[in-house]
């Protein structure tokens, strides 16, 4: 299926005494195909071999992917449950002792029960992640609502994907991150990529991106930094961080003014055009240029190229989503595709780059405070009823919707939440305004953390449960295309580590809720229940059986039944998921960033990734090759800005905002705007840039504004350098 010009028949190397396990990378949403090399005598993973037969990435991997196998047998793995008896040591690596699973489970069950008896059901909370399989994501939602009976569950997708979800839901009535398969990308005529450092964050997309240009197509990139992607773009729109919506509105205005509108499509398949047309009139090239800092000539040219392109894809990522108007930004760029009718056919559409491995699947199946499996709403009685039937509980037993990720920390600070079960996430590095978040974690009465390394967040736990890496378990994930794929087990769990789904099943038993979970004996049982739980939902996975996934090189959702082969292209029938079948063109007034530069904080701070690290760096900072390549964070400063502050390359400076301060080495580069500084966010403890970022939340997605806040740089006095 979907094999294209990049696909080549190449045999894999077969070394003696080795078997190759077909699977996918543990990191970002690309989920590149790879073979894990397993020694058949020791039954251990010993290396990696490209997976040439995977149609999306045809063997290509980034440095994280090549070295991902080194996670599993790493010396830092936690091999036994750890308990800390002295809570005074919270927030440090000290004071843990090894225990049996029995002791750890008993302690958790007792503490959780006591807290709930004293302070009510909702005193407990669950904070999870989406670097785990659909099955685990699904079960975590069920565990929270059925075994713990609390309303408070949310996940790190709030820091990553929820604005894209909000934007897609508003515009299309459904949230599938890409309306087309990745194998279409190189065949389009114009790629408009906004707020994505694709070359570093999703490098295995690059051979398709470059191929567009090689064929004579156009690449337009909107980014405050001259990233490797922007460097080669036909047009680089170097906007000020946080001004994307103005740019999108400005381009939309030009598309309408210059008659690039697909009248037939707009009339028959969309709502809201008239209102939007009026609103964007204000965004003339001059006005847009004033707000964004991009020259009006470039804005005019961008609209002309996108407008003229027979087929075009608008793509975006965290750059536009991690803002306190991220949902508006997403809908703003989606407007471009809707107004010109460049959607609902192959080679044209919109797509978001998913940061986390299962950023797509993980947000569909009930880890969000207001969602149930299959993208059902917890506030919709019919949806609740459907899920209750699968779970075997009554609608009255279903908890109310909770609050978003950052807001849970506020409740911890206020002692409204006193217990936390954290898994597959590292908010002590990845949440905004970290001084506050770390204080909130410390304020908990009891915290459980499930992880395979002692992360910065695990340091706040009372009990650490050793979980497995991705290669010691099996299940499905949904990649950035919306393609459900299979992760296969390559090695038995090392030490006493266990998969999270099994931990939850056993813990439920201890909590007296065994009857809802005890039938789940292996990952496949969870998968089967999970598929049933999504049946009839927007994100319908019912037909995506493991066998079909293997046979078809993945299955795109929705996949409703056994005869359905899935849906690679969305909206081919021009039917959108709003009740009237039409998409919504949104009229979106521009709002500036929550915090604008001022005299005291004259610079804009923006954050992002480097190619060598993944999210909070808990995994990648331990891999020797990746650590060597990027051992520490830095602050990117334009040469003219550096001259103004009398700072030089490699000098350590103090960077500060209203929320905190950090010392960083300076990296002087012309790739950054003069009014902006950039710091990668993968580092922990006192190096974490999130000590400085702002927790201004989007009103719809509740996503914090990681991408823009006001900052200042200060030269350190001599002798103060670390």
């Amino acid at each position, binding site marked *: 299926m979907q094999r294209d010009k990049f696909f080549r028949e*190449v*045999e*894999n*190397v077969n*070394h003696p005494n080795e078997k190759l396990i077909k699977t996918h990378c543990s990191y970002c949403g690309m989920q590149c195909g790879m073979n894990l090399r397993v020694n058949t005598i020791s039954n251990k993973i010993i*290396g*990696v*071999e*490209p997976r*040439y037969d995977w149609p999306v*990435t045809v*063997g*290509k*991997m*980034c*440095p994280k*992917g*090549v*070295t991902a196998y080194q996670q599993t047998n790493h010396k830092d793995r936690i091999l036994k449950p750890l308990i800390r008896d002295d809570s005074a040591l919270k927030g440090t690596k000290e004071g843990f002792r090894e225990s049996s699973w029995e002791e750890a489970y008993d302690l958790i069950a007792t503490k959780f029960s006591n807290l709930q008896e004293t302070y009510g059901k909702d005193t407990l909370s669950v904070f999870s992640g989406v670097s785990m399989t659909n099955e685990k994501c699904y079960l975590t939602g069920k565990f929270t609502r059925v075994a713990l009976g609390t309303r408070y569950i949310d996940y790190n997708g709030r820091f990553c994907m929820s604005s894209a979800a909000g934007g897609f839901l508003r515009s299309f009535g459904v949230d599938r991150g890409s309306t087309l398969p990745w194998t279409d990308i190189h065949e389009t*005529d114009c790629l408009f990529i906004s707020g994505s450092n694709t*070359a*570093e964050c999703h*490098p*295995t*997309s*690059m*051979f398709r991106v*470059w*191929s567009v*240009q*090689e*064929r*004579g*197509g*156009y690449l337009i990139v909107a980014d405050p930094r*001259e990233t*490797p*992607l922007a*460097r*080669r773009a036909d047009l680089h729109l170097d906007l000020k961080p946080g001004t994307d919506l103005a740019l999108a509105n400005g381009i939309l205005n030009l598309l309408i003014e210059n008659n690039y509108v697909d009248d037939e499509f707009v009339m028959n398949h969309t709502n809201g055009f008239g209102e939007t047309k009026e609103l964007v009139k204000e965004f003339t090239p001059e006005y847009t240029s004033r707000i964004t800092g991009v020259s009006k000539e470039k804005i005019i040219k961008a609209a002309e190229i996108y407008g*003229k*392109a*027979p087929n075009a894809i608008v793509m975006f990522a965290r750059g536009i989503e991690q803002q306190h108007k991220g949902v508006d930004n997403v809908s703003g760029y989606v407007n471009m595709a809707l107004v010109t009718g460049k959607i609902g056919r192959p080679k044209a559409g919109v797509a978001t780059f998913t940061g986390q491995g299962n950023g797509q699947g993980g947000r569909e199946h009930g880890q969000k405070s207001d969602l149930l499996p299959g993208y059902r709403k917890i506030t919709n009685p019919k949806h609740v009823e459907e899920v209750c039937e699968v779970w075997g509980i009554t609608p009255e037993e279903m908890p109310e919707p909770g609050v978003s990720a950052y807001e849970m920390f506020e409740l911890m600070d206020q002692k409204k939440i006193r217990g936390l079960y954290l898994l597959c996430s590292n908010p002590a590095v990845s949440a905004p305004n970290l001084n506050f978040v770390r204080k909130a974690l410390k304020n908990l009465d009891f915290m459980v953390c499930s992880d395979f390394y002692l992360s910065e967040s695990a340091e706040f736990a009372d009990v650490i449960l050793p979980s497995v890496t991705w290669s010691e378990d099996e299940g499905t994930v949904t990649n950035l295309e919306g393609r459900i794929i299979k992760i296969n087990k390559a090695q038995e769990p090392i030490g006493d580590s266990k998969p999270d789904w099994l931990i939850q099943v056993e813990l439920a038993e201890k909590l007296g809720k065994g009857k809802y979970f005890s039938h789940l004996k292996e990952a496949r049982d969870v998968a089967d229940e999970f598929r049933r739980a999504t049946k009839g939902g927007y994100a319908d996975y019912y037909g995506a059986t493991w066998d079909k996934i293997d046979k078809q090189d993945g299955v795109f959702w929705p996949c409703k039944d056994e005869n359905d082969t899935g849906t690679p292209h969305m909206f081919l029938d021009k039917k959108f998921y709003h009740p009237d079948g039409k998409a919504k063109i949104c009229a979106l007034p521009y709002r500036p960033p929550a915090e604008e530069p001022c005299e005291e904080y004259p610079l804009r701070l923006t954050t992002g990734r480097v*190619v*060598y690290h993944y999210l909070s760096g808990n995994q990648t900072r331990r891999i020797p*090759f990746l650590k060597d*390549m990027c051992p520490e964070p830095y602050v990117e400063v334009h*040469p003219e800005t550096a001259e103004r502050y009398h700072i030089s*390359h490699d000098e350590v400076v103090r960077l500060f905002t209203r929320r905190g301060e950090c010392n960083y080495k300076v990296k*002087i*580069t*012309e*790739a950054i705007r003069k009014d902006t500084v950039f710091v990668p966010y993968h580092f922990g403890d006192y190096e974490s840039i999130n000590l400085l970022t702002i927790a201004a939340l989007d009103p719809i997605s509740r996503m914090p504004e990681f991408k823009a806040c006001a900052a200042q740089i200060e030269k350190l006095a001599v002798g103060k350098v670390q």
Partner: protein
Amino acid sequence: MKKRLYLELENCIGCRSCLAACTQCGGHEERNRNYVYDVNPLVNRQTMPLMCLHCVNPACARSCPAQAIQIHETGAVLSALVEKCIGCQNCTIACPYGIPKFDTEQNLMYKCDLCIDRTKDGIPPMCASVCPSNTLQWLTEEEIEAKQKNHPLNNGKWVASMPYLEGETNVKISLPGILQGTTKLF
């Protein structure tokens, strides 16, 4: 079908997957034998990979007094033979591209062998297998010719490695600016 390693420098995004991948090739002792250079680090961080070009008449082999550097029938210039290398480092001095490196512990030179245990069986070398930006490609002669035809440069120097570098090489490199001659679709 005979294939060659081909470098399209303009595609490089500096991810260093090729370095990571090189460590995964059998017999490379988890050490990379290729390099990625920052061309202008304080400006825009443009990078370029450099691998052994596998010269047809290689200076490293020519300069080796012990005949420790063998040339495989595929054209790949191999790493020094353990039993023959005397550790004189002539090869590291002779190579105009700085490819052979010296392992002082083993008193032995090591260099890119074009993943000979893969390429002899028609499997692409690890660097070209994983390269996510198609900077490193494993192509047939016809495919390389087609590229040259599709992207003509006015100066006629589309491929830099013949005869402008160290004589004729088995690895081909396109000059930056390969897309200058591309006709836009619209």
